[in-house]
């Protein structure tokens, strides 16, 4: 038993899971805020890609990773702003405008990657430092999982709590939820639905942008075309599975990250399943979860509906 536990390396699995869940959680939190205000955000994938790219370029140019993180957040918010303008101002269907952002992000980052980054053969700006929290980092089990991480992962954990408080305890959150459930009612209560939706979509973009920084600045220290690899969509599934709550999204993201790590581990435990099959574990799980376990999760009532007062 003991040997099995050691071989299974549960602590390592947990640490890998928390780490890999980072971008999922951040994007899912973004999704929660955006959709709670009534705007579907299928653009998270493109937002993360933009954040990863812009953050990397900024860090490369200034040799300052922290500046890069800031730029990632800002650029995420800005490209989300484009989604907001299209969806709120021009009443473009929100799924369509989200798709546009996704395609655009692939195109723009691809083109500029080629021009500005690909030729570089110098070492990149590196990755964000690992912060070992004094004392806590040495705790058995908990230490390696929670207290030996990099900035984006710490920020993710803190943000889960913050977004929860923001959504359910603050004035902003109350108004946000009102806009997502019944925008006209919110408007008659003297709230500017437009302002709230802009704010939340851009906040969602900022969270997604930070998620993008995970890839280029925390993990890889480089930018690659399409490096977000569909994580934005999995984050959306996590958001739904988590029933549009921050903690729910957090747990759902952990589940997906764990299944990814586990699927890969089955290979070096020598379990004889074709690796193509084990590698689909997170996707199969997502489908099962979205279809089965959740049932018909109840979305914010007005999500996806354009609102325009005359």
């Amino acid at each position: 038993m003991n040997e099995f536990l050691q071989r299974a390396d549960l602590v390592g699995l947990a640490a890998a899971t928390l780490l890999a869940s980072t971008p999922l959680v951040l994007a899912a939190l973004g999704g929660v805020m955006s959709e709670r205000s009534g705007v579907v955000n299928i653009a998270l994938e493109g937002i993360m890609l933009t954040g990863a790219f812009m953050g990397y370029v900024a860090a490369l140019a200034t040799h300052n990773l922290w500046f890069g993180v800031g730029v990632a957040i800002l650029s995420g918010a800005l490209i989300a702003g484009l989604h907001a303008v299209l969806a709120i101002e021009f009443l473009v269907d929100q799924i369509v405008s989200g798709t546009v952002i996704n395609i655009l992000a692939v195109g723009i980052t691809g083109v500029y990657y080629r021009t500005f980054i690909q030729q570089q053969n110098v070492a990149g700006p590196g990755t964000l430092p690992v912060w070992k929290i004094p004392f806590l980092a040495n705790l058995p089990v908990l230490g390696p999982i929670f207290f030996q991480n990099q900035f984006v992962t710490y920020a993710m954990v803190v943000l889960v709590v913050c977004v929860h408080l923001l959504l359910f305890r603050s004035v902003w959150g109350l108004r946000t939820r009102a806009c997502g459930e019944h925008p006209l009612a919110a408007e008659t209560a003297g709230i500017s639905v437009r302002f709230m939706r802009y704010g939340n979509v851009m906040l969602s973009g900022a969270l997604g942008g930070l998620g993008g920084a995970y890839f280029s600045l925390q993990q890889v220290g480089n930018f690659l075309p399409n490096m977000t690899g569909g994580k934005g969509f999995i984050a959306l599934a996590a958001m739904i599975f988590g029933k549009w709550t921050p903690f729910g999204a957090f747990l759902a993201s952990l589940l997906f990250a764990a299944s990814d790590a586990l699927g890969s581990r089955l290979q070096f435990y020598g379990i004889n399943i074709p690796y193509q099959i084990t590698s689909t574990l997170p996707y199969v799980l997502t489908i099962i979860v979205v279809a089965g376990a959740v049932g018909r999760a109840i979305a914010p009532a007005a999500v996806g509906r354009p609102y325009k007062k005359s």
Partner: protein
Amino acid sequence: MRLVLHWLRQALVPLLSVICGFIVAGFAVFLSGANPVDALVALFQGAFLERNSVSETLIATIPYIFLGLAVAIGFKAGLFNIGAEGQFYLGAIAGTYVGYSLHGLPAIVHIPLAVAAGMLGGLGYAVIPGVLKARFGAHEVITTIMLNHIALAVSDYLINRGPMGDPHASAPKTPFIQHSAELPILIPNARLHLGLLLALAAVPIVWFLIERTTVGFRLRAVGLNQTAARAAGISVGWTIVLVMAMSGALAGLAGADEVLGVSHFMPPTFSVGYGFDSIAVALVARSNPWGIVPAAFLFGSMRSGAGFMQLQTQVSADLISVVQATVIIFVAAPVMVRWLFRLRERPAIPTPLAAQEGAAV
């Protein structure tokens, strides 16, 4: 004459959108330090003026027609089938299998069999998200994206030294299909094949289906208002499955057509990004089957000319995505184009997708 005018008016906003798209993309090229005029000229040249390039452009157009129709049918019923990519794969796999495994059939039998197998493959794969949505309310955007990932793995499993792998090949691929399953070439010394005619035939069929049959009425009703459709005795669940089946059959046909007409075998990684591109095609065409043809031609030209553009100017083919995205923006936001060009006409707003019942993504 009035008809022509009507068509022109219909085409005006998409046309202006395309122009806007190219302007924005040109600006992106400019920012990257290359000469946008050169790039766009090379793109045009590569798509139309080089040897065989018209044939190649048409070849690239074929899958876009099928896939654009596939996505458009979904749109009509308020479904967002992002899974065209995966269905394309399954169609290609099924078409390839029938293409190489059956021996001694005459072409007149073998080709329809292989094509039908492709349609069935795509259909079967699309029915999965259809049933999941109808039965459990699982949003098709998420399930189809996941199924796209799974399709990649399935195809790799089958072909990469798997049951469908060619044991004699030095690279993972299926065996070649039989000559009797190859779609006939239309022009000597070029690759343009019968698939073009199939694609062009699919357009009026889909149009008739949507506009003139009860099936089409059923799916439009479901797309516009599920509650009212249900109250009128239409089974929404069945309709969703039916629509996904039709959509998947078209996507599968596209996949089979690529194998039977162009590559004649299938490697494990077969299509890259057709799924998302075809969404763009359907959007630009505003889900109108007739509009799919020019839209597919536009995207086919861009894809076909991209290589030559890169050769001449070394501008990345990713630029095409920028054009696509901007074109969609302008098409999807007619308000914006009208505002830009001071048009007075009032184009229809595309079918809302996000605002379906319980359709939160």
